[in-house]
């Protein structure tokens, strides 16, 4: 559960020396290399770097593809699969404990990735809808974590003193929790009904709050560190000397300068949250049935892997690809936006 993405060596060599330079110096540096003298914004420079990083671009494309799949799950399934919750008894053999008929987990042109043992639900449809759950929860949880983390980090870093001490200890406290155990017991203890919402909506909300509520210190610490160095810079002093209030300095002067690290680390927290959601679902406290989720599919597949390995491979590979793509893209983004972060 520890984030700590290590610098990707391939990216490092590919990006070469230029990319290691400070963004502030990059523009004049390239201007002197000949060609036309043209002013480029920081954003353009970063974009240029990112484009040259093939690994990151591939990761990014996969992420976009997955997001599209999640968003258009309904039409995709209508076109290529069966309703995700529909039992297809004729596709399984009750005399073999419900194993899919046919080899490779019952793959056929009707059932592109086979069927689920025991009830014959379409694995393709459930995987597609599983992507929706995984990404939705991970994105929302990351939004929660980023919001809390940024506010806490910026406040701690800017004010320092006892405020910093309290917030920093709070972060230590959160990081010291046995995360998974605590999350499981919390989900079990918290009420399942809330304000007339569907039970599954309530459960997803809970997952978002719990996952987000526990991953904010990772971002919080980084933002605090960045703020500590930023607050000594001249533009902050200038603002302060002109009588700007703390709130103005925090959110108008500091925050825009923190956009890069926020973006980078939010991208890197998403895969961690995807794994977290899958783990909770695997352990039986994730989304409620019959909603599908990759973690739940994996948990189910444990009983069948010896005779129907495909049922385990499909959600496992999806999880693997998704997390890998996010990590590669996130690393690339960090190299592009914040080359000194290594």
């Amino acid at each position: 559960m520890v984030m700590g993405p290590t610098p990707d060596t391939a990216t490092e060599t590919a990006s070469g020396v230029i990319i290691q330079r400070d963004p502030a110096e990059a523009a004049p540096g390239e201007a002197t290399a000949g060609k036309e003298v043209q002013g480029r914004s920081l954003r353009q420079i970063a974009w240029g770097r990112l484009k040259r990083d093939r690994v990151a671009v591939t990761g990014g494309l996969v992420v976009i593809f997955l997001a599209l799949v999640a968003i258009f799950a309904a039409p995709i399934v209508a076109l290529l699969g069966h309703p995700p919750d529909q039992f297809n008894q004729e596709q399984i053999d009750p005399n073999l404990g419900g194993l899919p008929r046919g080899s490779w987990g019952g793959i056929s042109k009707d059932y592109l990735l086979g069927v689920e043992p025991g009830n014959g639900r379409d694995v393709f449809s459930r995987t597609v809808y599983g992507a929706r759950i995984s990404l939705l929860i991970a994105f929302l949880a990351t939004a929660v974590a980023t919001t809390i983390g940024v506010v806490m980090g910026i406040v701690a870093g800017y004010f320092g003193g006892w405020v910093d001490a309290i917030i920093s200890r709070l972060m230590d406290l959160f990081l010291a929790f046995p995360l998974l155990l605590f999350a499981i017991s919390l989900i079990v203890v918290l009420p399942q009904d809330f304000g007339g919402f569907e039970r599954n909506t309530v459960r997803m909300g809970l997952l978002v709050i719990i996952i987000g509520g526990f991953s904010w210190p990772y971002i919080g610490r980084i933002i605090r560190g960045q703020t500590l160095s930023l607050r000594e810079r001249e533009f902050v002093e200038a603002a302060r000397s002109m009588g700007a209030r703390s709130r103005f300095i925090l959110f108008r002067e500091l925050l825009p300068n923190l956009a890069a690290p926020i973006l980078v680390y939010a991208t890197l927290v998403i895969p961690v949250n995807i794994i977290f959601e899958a783990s909770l679902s695997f352990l039986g406290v994730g989304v409620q049935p019959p909603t599908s989720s990759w973690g739940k599919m994996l948990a189910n597949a444990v009983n069948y892997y010896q005779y129907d390995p495909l049922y385990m491979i499909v959600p496992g590979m999806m999880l693997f690809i998704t997390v890998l793509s996010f990590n590669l893209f996130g690393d690339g983004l960090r190299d592009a936006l914040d080359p000194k972060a290594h």
Partner: protein
Amino acid sequence: MARGRKVLVATSVIGALALTAGCGGTSKTPTTPPKASGYNAALNAVVNPSTAKGGTLRMANPSDIDSFDPARTYYAWGWNMNRFYTRNLVSYDSKVGEAGLKLVPDIAKEAGKVSADGLTYTYTLKDNIKFNDGSVVTSKDIKYGIERIFAQDVLSGGPTYLIDFLDQGQRYPGPYKDSDPAKMGLKSVETPDDKTIVFKLKEPFGDFPYLLAMPGAGPVKQSADTGEKYANKPMSTGPYMMDSYEPGKSAVFVRNPNWDPATDPIRKALPDRIELALGVESNEIDNRLLAGTVDIDTAQVGVQQAAQTKIQLDPAVKANADNPVTGFIRYFSISTQVAPFNDIHCRKAVQYAADKVALQTARGGPEAGGDIATNMLPPNIAGHDPKLDPFNTKSGKPQIDKAKEELKLCGKPDGFKTVIAVRNRGKEPACAEALQQALKAVGIDASIEQSDPALYFRSTIGSPDNVHKKGYGIMTAGWGADWQTGYGYLQILIDGRSILPSGNNNYAELNDSEINSLIDKARAEADPTKAAAIWNDINKKVMDTATMLPFVYDKALNYRNPRLTNVYIHSAFGMLDFQALGVSDGK
């Protein structure tokens, strides 16, 4: 799944849970002549009959036993294990098929004499029955053993039926708090001499001998009783005595030199030594079974999915497997107290909408799961009527039209919302999903609430308050008989007077005065055939309330090592008769 299932101990009324039971349904008509081995051969005949002694019987179980103390064990396999070292006044016969359900005199010379009013049972003991220390078993030892059951504060966990029928309001506290210096304070059990024991019941109870056949009614020598430590070294009256027991790891039994085979019509005592490995992972046990290094899994609740497929795909392996009826029914209880199920038509809608084929598949299919159930008495219980099927569910197909009609009648033509409660382990969540999916087809929107198995029967659905608060309309359950009569199976599930604030087993809170009075009538009935007829009637009335939705008569696919001799399924336990087993290679 009921892998050696821990039982809820209710304190006041009959607090009991399930014990796996037999296979009368399949064994009634042996269609094939007895074979040496083969698939399901042990259901109808003795496989590899032999009298060769010697060797070591190797057993394994995924968890520890609840207790080796005869008064405290409630696991089905625990009762089966007790046949090695505990002898009762009467015990189940060692015969295959329905004959095994008969109680035969064991320590007693003959079946008990019942007084005309049905309130007094008198037994006379055989001579030469000894404990493993050589001392003779007297009627006082049997009385002391029964007194121990009353000490529920020290020795909890076992069945408490004997307390219910032997306590006429004197509230005997058990021998440890007995003021009588000889610790013989239980007045309802009399021992006029060392060979005679007289039981005086609170009310007539035709099934009383079945209570005496439970391990807790076996003799315990007072001077050897170590209270709650007794489980670590129980005395033996049977052919084997405990040599060592390491909780959670292993138990070893060796021959009891003071057991006299001439006094014992039941036990075979073939192996020299019995080794039981405890706490071995289920898949690991399956692998060892198939490799032949373990003889049987004492849980006897069926192999895991991987081994199941291996057995089902390979006829040579399958020849060493049996698929007995365990005596369990898997069912959903539909609450009478949670809206809208307080209206019988809403309950009936669920009965008609259920897809029993999907439910059967979710339990593992016809072989590993069991046959589709249509009523609430399992096939091994007297009074079972396979034709009783008020909702016409034998084919297993959902009847959408009828379900929708019932929905109209209960004023919810577009369906409603409800909650299905289920344990979060084993095959049960899949069953809940199958029901959820079937209900969706008629507009009933059921959400599934999974919870911790340890608390499930005690407080999750075992507490009516919690059921009302959480709105559990449908509760997933499973039940097996403590003994093979309608009373031993059904009473605790449907008796409106045994609804408890916690550890309740009447989950639907069914309280029907007509059913209650029929239960009383059946209990007092001394003639088993007449009692069975009344239970058939009760079963019909219960089904008509639509509070119970049975879907599978449980079966278990078990593997036996080919080297085993004298192998047969015992109907009272729904599993192999452990004490009869021997090994052919003498190792």
